[in-house]
């Protein structure tokens, strides 16, 4: 091994400054503060620039990771952002919300002996640097192909594919049911984890590339997918997400004060209820808030509850911390801020007052039994372990399911028994010619980056379809 290599490994993984937990638990400002230029360069220099990089294969959208990191090490920060944007339309988002520890950083060669390169933090740094500099590079777009493509849903999948296809010269329109583009990035992920100004900036970048975004258009209602074809669209991509809440169907779940995580987070994030009455949408500011579930959405809800003034914010989860689907970082952040974890606990009933307001929650204690189909040990109730907790707000964050609005109005579109659209893994092709699908509406609830990965694959497939179609009509 050369001396040079040894030297590089000596730089420790740069930690990212964060807001103090006590302070941040009372505000909605972003928790991690980002690298300084010096930190970014130091961290970038840790990358040993593998000849055969394993990290790229760990990225669903194939970001040239050593490439952009090299540019940061050379202090060409704008160049690094440009490199990122060659393959990733939303780098400032991905740098914040991707589970890098399970993807690129997991396979980073440095991770075998020590800490992997902080790829996510570097991605965030480069994207933020470019945005804050105001020097946004708009890449060249291919000459118009004359083909029109519609994206249904302006979430991570739809925005990614829109960026890809517009660069290839296609005429791209994104239809969004809500009044703002971004999907889960806007309504789901809280400000303190992903500032909305960043999502707006990334959407703005797509508009500058030529993507048309039509908000307040609920496809399936105002227009069907078939009507989009009649209007002249040559292909349609469905990236509508798994936007329907799941409840447990236990007694008392319809009392006032009981929310789906979708509603709780939509009120706070999209409608900015945390700034009520400056914004008109209200939200219940509970003192004792129980969030049911152990995923990222549950962590987001519990941390939101703290910021809305909860004295006690609980995570109620039926397994243990090991089985929690949330990112370790999110669990850690929640614990630091004072979220209380009630593990091996499952609610079975909500009790209410004379106004049908939730006041108490009856729970069972659980233990772990044999592994179930997910490979995780199945939680089993402990006999006679019932107990009651005082709660005035409950947020049910146990997952989401397919929203049937689009699929049910598109004849011939094959769905599986849970209502998810059946689409080919590699291309996003559905049972209907010219209709592609990807993201949560195909896979069920997953991550932002997996939806973007699906968008990317479908983009190539749609491009090929459109070009083939052109030849066919000659």
């Amino acid at each position, binding site marked *: 091994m050369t001396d040079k290599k040894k030297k590089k490994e000596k730089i420790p993984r740069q930690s990212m400054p964060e807001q103090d937990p006590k302070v941040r638990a009372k505000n909605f400002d972003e928790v991690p503060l980002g690298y300084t230029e010096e930190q970014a360069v130091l961290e970038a220099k840790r990358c040993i620039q593998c000849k055969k990089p394993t990290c790229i294969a760990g990225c669903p959208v194939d970001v040239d990771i050593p490439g952009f990191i090299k540019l940061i090490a050379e202090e060409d920060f704008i160049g690094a952002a440009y490199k990122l944007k060659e393959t990733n339309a939303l780098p400032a988002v991905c740098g914040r919300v991707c589970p890098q520890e399970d993807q690129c950083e997991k396979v980073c060669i440095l991770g075998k002996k020590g800490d992997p390169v902080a790829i996510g933090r570097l991605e965030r740094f480069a994207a933020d640097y470019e945005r804050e500099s105001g020097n946004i590079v708009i890449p060249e777009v291919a000459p118009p192909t004359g083909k029109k493509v519609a994206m249904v849903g302006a979430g991570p999948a739809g925005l990614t594919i829109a960026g890809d296809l517009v660069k290839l010269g296609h005429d791209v329109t994104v239809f969004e049911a809500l009044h703002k583009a971004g999907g889960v990035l806007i309504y789901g992920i809280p400000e303190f984890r992903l500032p909305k100004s960043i999502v707006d900036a990334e959407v703005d970048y797509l508009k500058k590339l030529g993507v048309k975004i039509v908000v*307040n258009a609920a496809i399936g209602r105002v227009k069907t997918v078939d009507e989009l074809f009649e209007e002249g669209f040559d292909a349609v991509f469905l990236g509508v997400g798994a936007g329907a*809440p799941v409840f447990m169907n236990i007694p008392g779940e319809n009392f006032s004060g009981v929310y789906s995580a979708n509603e709780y987070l939509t009120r706070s994030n999209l409608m900015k209820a945390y700034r009520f009455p400056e914004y*008109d949408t209200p939200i219940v500011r509970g003192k004792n808030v129980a969030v049911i579930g152990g995923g990222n959405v549950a962590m987001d809800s519990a941390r939101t509850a703290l910021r809305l003034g909860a004295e006690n914010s609980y995570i109620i989860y039926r397994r243990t911390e090991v089985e929690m689907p949330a990112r370790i970082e999110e669990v850690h952040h929640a614990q630091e801020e004072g979220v209380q974890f009630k593990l091996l606990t499952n609610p079975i009933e909500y009790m209410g007052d004379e106004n049908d307001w939730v006041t108490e929650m009856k729970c069972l204690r659980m233990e772990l039994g044999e592994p179930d189909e997910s490979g995780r040990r199945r939680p089993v109730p402990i006999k006679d372990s019932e107990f009651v907790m005082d709660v005035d707000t409950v947020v049910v964050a146990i997952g989401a399911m397919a929203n049937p609005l689009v699929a049910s109005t598109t004849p011939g579109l094959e769905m599986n028994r849970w209502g998810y659209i059946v689409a080919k893994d590699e291309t996003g092709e559905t049972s209907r010619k010219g209709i592609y699908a990807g993201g949560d509406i195909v896979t069920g609830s997953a991550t932002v980056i997996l939806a973007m990965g699906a968008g990317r694959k479908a983009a190539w497939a749609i491009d090929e379809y459109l070009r083939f179609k052109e030849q066919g009509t000659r």
Partner: protein
Amino acid sequence: MNKITEKGYLSENVVRMVVEAPDVARKRKAGQFVVLMTGEKGERIPLTIVDSDEEKGTITIIFQVVGKTTTLLADMSEGESLFTVLGPLGQPTEMKNFGTAVCVGGGVGIGVAYPVIKALAEAGNKVIPIIGARTKDILILENEIRSISNELIVATDDGSYGVHGFVTNVLQNLIDSGEQIDIVFAIGPVPMMKFLCEVTKPYGIKTIVSLNPIMVDATGMCGACRVSVGGETKFACVDGPEFDGHKVDFGLLMSRLKTYNDQEKTAMEDYRCKCNDG
């Protein structure tokens, strides 16, 4: 942005507004609604599409001024634009020739009942509309409904106009008179719908109600609008807003409608203060 092309008061605090929304106008059917926002910081509120003009590309909405959002909306003028109009949402009214259909509208609910009455008449039903209000001055759309049905019955609680009494009494009398009723549509305040369902239940007359729970996205995403129908949880925004009234848990609906009463008061006071300061 959706321009307001007409605005006027139907009574002291009930407003009729015509708004540009060509795609909605083209597609909407009786029973459906829109969600609108007055401004970027506004709430999303659902309002029934009362009528539409496909040629002009407009829809008509009617609303009562009750809280901050409806106050803001009522303060907007012709030529100004709403921030958003999303629609048409919800399931259209199940429409066919039922035979004799009674359509009861109470208060501002008369506006919601109007498109249903119109569609029932167009589908060949014998339609008997019953419209009621507390007093004559706040009765709306009488002429419009009379023009599409010759059997209109009007009632006022105080007897200032039409039959003296509640619409429930009128419906009971109609049943007692031997009128063969195939279906009842009950649209208005929750207690009114509840009592109308109690009137029809012993006779087994199918009764459809139109529910107005709190909504946020109104596309089935959030579950704010959940109602209990026959013991099952339904989302009024995508499964409704119309349901079999004999199966609806009206008590729960009323409770859930009060969830934000305190905040609504705060919002209104805050708004009034700012107006006075200005």
